[in-house]
C-alpha cells in the first residue's frame, strides 16, 4: 500500500510538473508531496538496523547500533539500542503524540520530545518517525540545478508554524525520483545550523529508502553523525512491538 501511495504521488507529480524552465511555487508543493510520499511508509511497516557513527571533537567517535521499527500509518516507532553495551536496551517508543524514553537501569519510561537529539547524536528523534513536510512548510522558492552529477530541484521552504525545529529549510531533490539528496536547516536568523546528506538509497519493494544519512552540525567544527541502514524489511510487524510491554520484555 505504501508503495502505491508513493508511486501515485510521483505519477501525479509527473503529470503536473511542467517542462523545465516554467516552474512555479505550486509545483514545489507537488514536489514536497512526492517527497513526503517517499519518506513515509504509508500502509506498511518498516524495520531496519541502524549503525550510527557520531564524531565529536570533544568526545571522539562513538558507534551505536539501533534496531528500528516503524509503522507510520499509526504514527508509531520503536528504536532499541543494541550497542554500545552501556546503552544496551535503551529505547525510544512513539505512540501517537507521545514519545517515551526507556532506561533499562531504572526500568522507567520518561517523556521526551521529538525535537531532542537522538541518543546524543546530531540526528533528532523526529528524523526517525513519520514526517510531513507539506504540513509544516511552504515553498518560497523553487529552481532547477545540479548536485554533483544529479539533476535536482532546489526547494526553499519556510515554516508555516513556529513549532517546527528549523524555520527555514533548503532541500535538493532528484528530478527523476524525487529523492532528497541534501537538506540544509537554517535558524530564524538565517544561519545554517545543520546539513543532512542522503547519498545512497536502496529499493525496498517498489520504493526507495535512504541507506546512508549524514547529519553535519554546522555550528561545531567536526561534529557529525553518519547513519547506515542494513537488514531492511518492509514485512508486516506484530502489533505488540509498539508497546511498553515489548520494550520491557526485550530487556529481561
Amino acid at each position, binding site marked *: 500500500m505504501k508503495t502505491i501511495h508513493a508511486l501515485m504521488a510521483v505519477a501525479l507529480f509527473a503529470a503536473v510538473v511542467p517542462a523545465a524552465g516554467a516552474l512555479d511555487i505550486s509545483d514545489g508543493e507537488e514536489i514536497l508531496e512526492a517527497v513526503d510520499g517517499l519518506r513515509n511508509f504509508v500502509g506498511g511497516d518498516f524495520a531496519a538496523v541502524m549503525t550510527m557513527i557520531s564524531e565529536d571533537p570533544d568526545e571522539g567517535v562513538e558507534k551505536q547500533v539501533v534496531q528500528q521499527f516503524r509503522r507510520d500509518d499509526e504514527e508509531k516507532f520503536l528504536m532499541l539500542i543494541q550497542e554500545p553495551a552501556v546503552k544496551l536496551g535503551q529505547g525510544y517508543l512513539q505512540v501517537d503524540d507521545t514519545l517515551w524514553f526507556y532506561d533499562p537501569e531504572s526500568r522507567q519510561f520518561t517523556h521526551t520530545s521529538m525535537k531532542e537529539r537522538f541518543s546524543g547524536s546530531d540526528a533528532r528523534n523526529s528524523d526517525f518517525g513519520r514526517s510531513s513536510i507539506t504540513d509544516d512548510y511552504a515553498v518560497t522558492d523553487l529552481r532547477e540545478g545540479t548536485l554533483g552529477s544529479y539533476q535536482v530541484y532546489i526547494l526553499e521552504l519556510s515554516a508555516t508554524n513556529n513549532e517546527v*525545529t*528549523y524555520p527555514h529549510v533548503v532541500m535538493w531533490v532528484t528530478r527523476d525520483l524525487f529523492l532528497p539528496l541534501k537538506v540544509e536547516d537554517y535558524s530564524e536568523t538565517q544561519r545554517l545550523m545543520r546539513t543532512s546528506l542522503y547519498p545512497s538509497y536502496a529499493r525496498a519493494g517498489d520504493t526507495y529508502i535512504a541507506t546512508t544519512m549524514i547529519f553535519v552540525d554546522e555550528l561545531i567544527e567536526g561534529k557529525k553523525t553518519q547513519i547506515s541502514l542494513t537488514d531492511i524489511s518492509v514485512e508486516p510487524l506484530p502489533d505488540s512491538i509498539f508497546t511498553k510491554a515489548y520494550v520491557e520484555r526485550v530487556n529481561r
Partner: protein
Amino acid sequence: MTTLRMALRNISRQKKRTILLGGAIAFGVMIITLVGSLTAGLASTANERFTDLLGGHIYISGQEVSESGRLISIVGEQEPLEEALFLIDDQIKEIRFRSAASGEVIFGSRTTTVMLDGVDWDHEPTLYKNLELIAGDITSVSDERTIIVPEPVMEELGVLVGESVLIRVTSITGQRNVGDFVIGGVTPDAGTFGLGSAYVDRAYLNSLIGMAADQYQRANIALADTGDIETVAATIERELLLLGKIDPGETAADDGHQPGSGPGRTMMFPGGMGFSAQVEETEQWEGTQFKVSTINDVMEPVMTIVTLLNQVSLGLFVVLMIITMVGLLNTFRMILIERTREIGTIRAIGMQRGQVRNMFLLEAFVLAVGGAIAGLVAAGILAAILGNIPMSTNTPMAMFLDGNTFAFPVNVINIAGTLAILTVITVLSAYLPARKAARMRPADALRTSY
C-alpha cells in the same frame, strides 16, 4: 560569699569527678552549639546564594498555551501583573523582569551549556552596580551582543574577554536558533555546581527565543524587608486570583493553608528548555496564567536538611543531658553521704538550712556554668578550625559554602537559651540532694557513721 567559697572549695576537692561531670556538660554544649551554628550558616549561605541566583525573593512567572496546545513560558499579558504589583509598590526594593533560556555556548569545536538570564540592564541598577567581575568591564553590556559568563564557562571553552562565541538556544515554541555574542565580562566561580547564570541583553535573547523585545518570562521581586516575603506573595497571589489569572485549583492563598505551601507555588525555571508539554484540550486556557513562588519554596529542601540536622543535634544534646543529670543526681547523693558529718558540724556551728541548700545548688551551678563555658570555648575553637578548611567548590555542597569554607555564625540568642536550659536542669537535678542535706538535723548528722 562564704557559701560560694565553700562551694568552690568542694568542687576543687574532687577534681576527677568534677572534670568528668563538667566534661560531659561541655561536650553536650559544644555539640549543640557547633551544629546549631553550622546549620544556621548553611541556611543563611544557601538563602543568599539562591536569592542572588534567582534575582530576588518572590518570583512570578507566566504560562500560555500555544495554538497547537503546547505549554509555553511567557508573560504575554502584563497588565494583570502590573495591577498586582501596584498593591505592594511600597514594599518593593527592585523588580527584575527577565527572560531565560538554556544555551549551548560554542567556541570553535568546544561547547558547554549555560543558563542565560536575559537582563534589562537599564532597569537593573543593582546588578549593574554590584556585579563582581574578575575580567572585562560592565560597561560593555551597552552592546546587545555582550554576554557576561561565569568563570567555569570561560575556562571550559578557553575563551577570553572580547572574543566571539555562538550560542544555540531553543525558542519558547521549540525552534532551534543561534545568536552571536561577545564575551564582555567574567563573573567569579560561585561554586553553584553549574547553576551560575550568564547574563545577556534581554531584548536580544528575546529575539532568539521568539519573544518581543519588551516581553519577559518572569518577574523577580526583591523586597525591602525580607520578613514580609510570604505576606507580599500572598497579596500578589490573591490579586491575580481575583483577576482570574491564577488557576484557582493551584493557589494556596485562600484555602487556609500557609501561604507558599500550595501547588500554585511551583518553582519555575522558564525559558527554551527544548521541551514543551502538550496541554489537554479540556485544560487549555486563554491568555497568561501566573505562578507565584518565593525564596522560601526554593529553600524548602535546604530547610528540611537544616531542621533534620538540628533535630539530630538536639536529640544528642537531650540524651547527653539526661545522662549528665542522672550522673549529677547520683554524684550529689554520694556527696551528701560523704559530707553528712561535715554538714552536721557546720550546722552545729551555726550555718542555716538555707545556706547548706544553697551551697549544694551553687556547686551544681558552678559546674554547669564552668562546663558550658568550656563547651563554648571548645565549639569556638573547632568552628575556627573547621571554618578555615578550604572545601571543593565543585560539588553540590558548594551551594552552602561561604566562599570556599563553611560559615559558623554566632547566634547569641540560641547560645543563651542553651545555657539557661542547661543551668536550670543542672541546678534542678542537684535540688533534691541539696534539700535533703538542708533538712538534716545536726545531731543526727554528727552521729552518722558510713
